[in-house]
């Protein structure tokens, strides 16, 4: 079981390519993975692992925990890839699995502390935040955003990710997290407020 001379040395990391495969290529990979072929699985993994890890890390900042979720997530992806019907993007389909796994992991480690529904928070949300000097949010570096998000509580982070980044509706979030829609909204409002403050600070420093 010792690596023989000339055996390819294991690379510890794979950096996903920044440009994605064209739809036909991806389709071929998915078909290959659906046939249970390791080659298709490898291509998919190597292309998307980095992106999926990034998505997971938005929910789970811990490296080891995130990697475990990535591992479980890809096991699930390849076990269920036969059920992917080529409707909608494959990346989106995978991402959904990863996000679900991340939330499951958070839930099973009891990290999701809910801030109860409160009228005050709903007011905050519905209040029009038409600020005169809206900062240039888009100029923020993704690292800054991730860093700021890591400072949120796991619950805020999850709700914010699901709503603002993944584009889930509060109703979906409430089902996903087992909370009420109101709780989802109020958690979102608070997460958003905290995050804005954190990022505003960062922008000031820039």
């Amino acid at each position, binding site marked *: 079981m010792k690596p023989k001379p000339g*055996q390819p040395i*294991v690379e*510890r990391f794979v950096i996903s390519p920044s440009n994605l495969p064209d739809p036909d290529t991806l389709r071929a990979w998915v078909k290959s993975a659906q046939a249970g072929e*390791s080659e298709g699985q490898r291509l998919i993994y190597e292309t998307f692992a980095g992106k999926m*890890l990034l998505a997971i890390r*938005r929910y789970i900042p811990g490296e080891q925990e995130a990697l475990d979720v990535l*591992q479980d997530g890809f096991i699930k992806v390849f*076990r269920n890839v036969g059920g992917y019907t080529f409707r909608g993007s494959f990346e989106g389909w995978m991402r959904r699995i990863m996000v679900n796994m991340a939330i499951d992991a958070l839930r099973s480690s009891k990290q999701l502390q809910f801030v109860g529904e409160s009228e005050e928070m709903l007011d905050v949300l519905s209040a029009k935040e038409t600020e005169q000097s809206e900062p240039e949010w888009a100029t923020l570096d993704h690292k800054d955003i991730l860093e700021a998000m890591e400072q949120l509580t796991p619950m805020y982070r999850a709700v914010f990710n699901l709503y603002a980044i993944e584009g889930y509706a509060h109703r979906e979030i409430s089902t996903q997290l087992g909370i009420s829609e109101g709780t989802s909204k109020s958690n979102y409002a608070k997460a958003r407020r905290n995050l804005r403050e954190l990022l505003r600070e960062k922008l000031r420093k820039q």
Partner: protein
Amino acid sequence: MSKDREEEKKRGAAGGGFEQGMRSALEKAPGMAAPSWLTMQSAMAGGAAGGAAAASWRWIIGPAAGAALIGGALWLSDPVSEQAEADGSPERVDPAVAEGDAVEPLEWFEDDAAATHEVWSIEGASEIEVVKAVETSIEAPSEGQSAAGDGFSAEEPLADVESEAPAESSPDASASAVNPEADEKSEDWADLPVEKLAAFGVDIDAACVGTEIGFRMAKPLKDVRVLWNFGDGQFSSEASPQHVFDAPGTYDITLSVTRISDGLIRTRTIENLVTIHPIPRADFTWEVPAMSEQHPVIRMRNRSRDASNATWIVDGETAQAGESAAFELGRTGEHIVQLVASSPHGCQSVARHNIEIGNRFGIGGSGRFSPDGDGSYDRFLPRGLIQLEWPFVFRIEDKEGHIVFETTEPRAWDGTLPGDERARPGQTFAWTAVIQGEVGPSYFSDEVVIE
């Protein structure tokens, strides 16, 4: 739900450019460095990580090399369907025969197919009865030779063979001239009940994948060609072949005997004759917790599959293996760690890693450094990692086990911590360097103190 969503999206958009900004900034983010496919594959092969296996990734670089060699590509494949594929299903038999290097088996197969209407049917016979019949014919090989004749048909009941009136005997003249001894036998040849004529036995009827199993005819016949169908897509035309089954399962064994003189074929199948048990796949991951103490400790995690129990052998010392185990190694240097995994049926496999373990002295790492920008000892990297021809991972963790620095390049740590912080004097950090060498990984671990 989609209506909700649209509404909410509108609301989100109306809320300002904040979400928009977040999204577009994150979209621009490149993916993170993820574990390599081999690492992932080997981790997956160990099953789902689950909550308790948080450490599973950490030093998986060691075993990943081994997994690559033992063909980790089988991960996630369904053993049942593999087995079904390996079984002698018709779709599979044909190409397998056609691909065979010998042309003969193909002819045999065609002969066999052409002659199916003539072949004795023993489908009704249970395994025990058939095996008994084999034994009987071994004990009394000369029995049941009262009748002679060429003709037989599938409609003929077995019991009628002996009482049937002898048909015209037509032994091949040339064959009998060449081999009179065989002629004697061939007179009765066609009339023997198939379970005696094509009787066969097997050395052992249950074994592990990869075990060689011997097959033999109960009564060797001359001037015949034989074809064994092992039920796994493999054939042999030897009289007493040895065969290795590559996949677990139960196999039907078929022996066809063809008399060379006139092409008469007798075929006999014993269903479920051979049972092949799966071999467990021994595999383990290992790590060496950062060591500043005298005695390095190695901690292993059992990643074996299909094993009912396992035993660790570390430098010759054995221990029953649970989910994980830790050994005090007593010295730095090379250590041999083996895991012997056994299945409930007694099939075994062994995973072995030669692991070199060293401390800072083995790789030229200083015990202290002072990242204060004064130009001396501002950076930290064990000297042995500079100009190293093997790939390595060098990693520094703080007391809480958070990784503060990691590199696969000979790049020194300048004391920077995540979040723009800096290591402070008095702080201690644990470092590890795993070097993927030619004969296996080497592992160096120690601590460095900030001055």
